[in-house]
């Protein structure tokens, strides 16, 4: 099976302090992978690295058959200005950017696709609503509708179900399953381990250092998670230069 993402001796961090430390591995094409770990484990950092938002300070990330800009990325704290006067329809339509570019107009078929995406996330009738009037869950649905239109081979979701009610989680999980069924590679940062066991075949457990990576049933165990919790050390301003980077 070919890989979608290949990671070699990857270190990501901020101001020379590593947040992801010497990670090696690969994410196969069409796989459905969960990233779990304690707070501060580097989960979001890793996702940003794969999305190309953050440059590695060591090692490399290689996207196979895919450019950084073809990756659909749902950030954790989307820096969205909810007070901006834009409707749900126009906002979701931004997902077609790759298709219509910065200048192209929305033709009839594109408008239909936008409508279908909005319907797929259960927001029928919300097309003309300004995004500022949406609830948290509705906004998350809107972002998923945009992800649908991005039609990406690699989809990165950073804590997509935070502060979202059960029904919305179920609906959005349905979309994640659909993307998986369509052969897309999906990587999601999650905290709900029960959900991970239920839906995600592959799991990476990290705690700055990689802890375990593989089939969810073998990786998400009490023993591994306890190890992950122990491995999160305090941020040390006076930390020495990492000996492994000399090699």
């Amino acid at each position: 099976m070919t890989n979608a993402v290949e990671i070699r001796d990857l270190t990501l961090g901020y101001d020379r302090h590593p947040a992801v430390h010497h990670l090696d591995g690969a994410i196969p094409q069409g796989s459905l992978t969960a990233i779990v770990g304690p707070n501060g484990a580097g989960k979001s950092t890793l996702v940003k690295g794969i999305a190309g938002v953050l440059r590695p300070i060591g090692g490399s990330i290689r996207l196979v058959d895919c450019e950084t800009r073809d990756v659909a990325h749902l950030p954790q704290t989307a820096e969205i200005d909810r007070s901006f006067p834009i409707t749900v329809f126009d906002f979701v339509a931004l997902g077609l950017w790759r298709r219509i570019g910065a200048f192209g107009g929305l033709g009839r078929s594109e408008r239909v696709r936008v409508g279908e995406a909005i319907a797929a996330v259960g927001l029928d009738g919300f097309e003309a609503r300004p995004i500022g009037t949406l609830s948290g869950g509705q906004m998350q649905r809107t972002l998923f509708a945009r992800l649908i239109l991005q039609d990406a081979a690699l989809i990165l979701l950073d804590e997509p179900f935070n502060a979202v009610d059960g029904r919305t989680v179920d609906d959005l999980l349905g979309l994640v399953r659909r993307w998986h069924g369509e052969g897309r590679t999906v990587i999601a940062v999650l905290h709900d381990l029960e959900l991970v066991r239920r839906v995600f075949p592959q799991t990476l457990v990290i705690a700055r250092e990689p802890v375990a990576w593989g089939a969810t049933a073998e990786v998400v165990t009490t023993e591994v998670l306890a190890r992950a919790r122990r491995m999160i050390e305090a941020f040390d301003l006076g930390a020495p230069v990492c000996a492994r980077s000399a090699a």
Partner: protein
Amino acid sequence: MFALLHDLLIAPFADFEFMRRALVGSVVLALAGAPIGVFLMLRRMSLTGDAMAHAILPGAALGYLVAGLSLPAMTIGGLAAGVLVALAAGAVARASVLREDTTLAAFYLTSLALGVVIVSMEGSNVDLLHVLFGSVLALDDAALTLIGGIATLTLVTLAAIFRPLVTDSVDPVFLRSLGGFGAPVHMTFMALVVMNLVGGFLALGTLLSVGMMMLPAASARLWTDDLTALLALAVPIGAVAAVSGLIAAYHLSLPAGPAIVLAAAVLYVLSLAFGRRGLLAARFGRRHLEA
């Protein structure tokens, strides 16, 4: 009755060429300045325009020092100073821990102080007033051409970068994920801001030229939640302010530039009171709906 209206509204422009020039200049300024103001407002940069207006001063002053009251020299100087400050503030914000509002404050204050020093080295205080408050009643052909050219370029450019600009305003992270759009769009927009301030400063001066951008934009926002309507509404509000300000200045012997901005301020206060999203509507709004 008609004679009275004619005397009040038409005669000032019919009788005096300088009034006609001021009319064209200020209305054209509103045409391009109002949409710029709308985006400044939506990008939470309402005060950035003011900062940039201050930043333009040393460039214009240097131009004045070198060539006297010469339009090309002061225009080029103002543009150069404005673009320099915008680029430097953006670049330093990206490269350091400082945010752009902080770097902009640092650069524009430096620029402003330099400008005042330059003006005081040579000119009298009258000249300083001229630079600070403009001379909408003394627009010559060259100045009108410049204002018209800037407005044309602004509207064409805004149309071209509309989608990236809107996206950068509402969801900048998403725009960055598309690769390479974010910084160029912001810089292009800042260049438009500087150009319009330079155009405005010929007529209204460095300080008041921001008024023609922000007051119509803020007024329009009190009437509508729709971006297209917002842009379409801000322009006529600015134009009405320009015309009524000139008329008031003529009959009441007020300085024309401040009169135009005050007219815009009156429209703002009216919008604040009576706008669909204004204070009265919020206070005595219709009763709530079923769903």
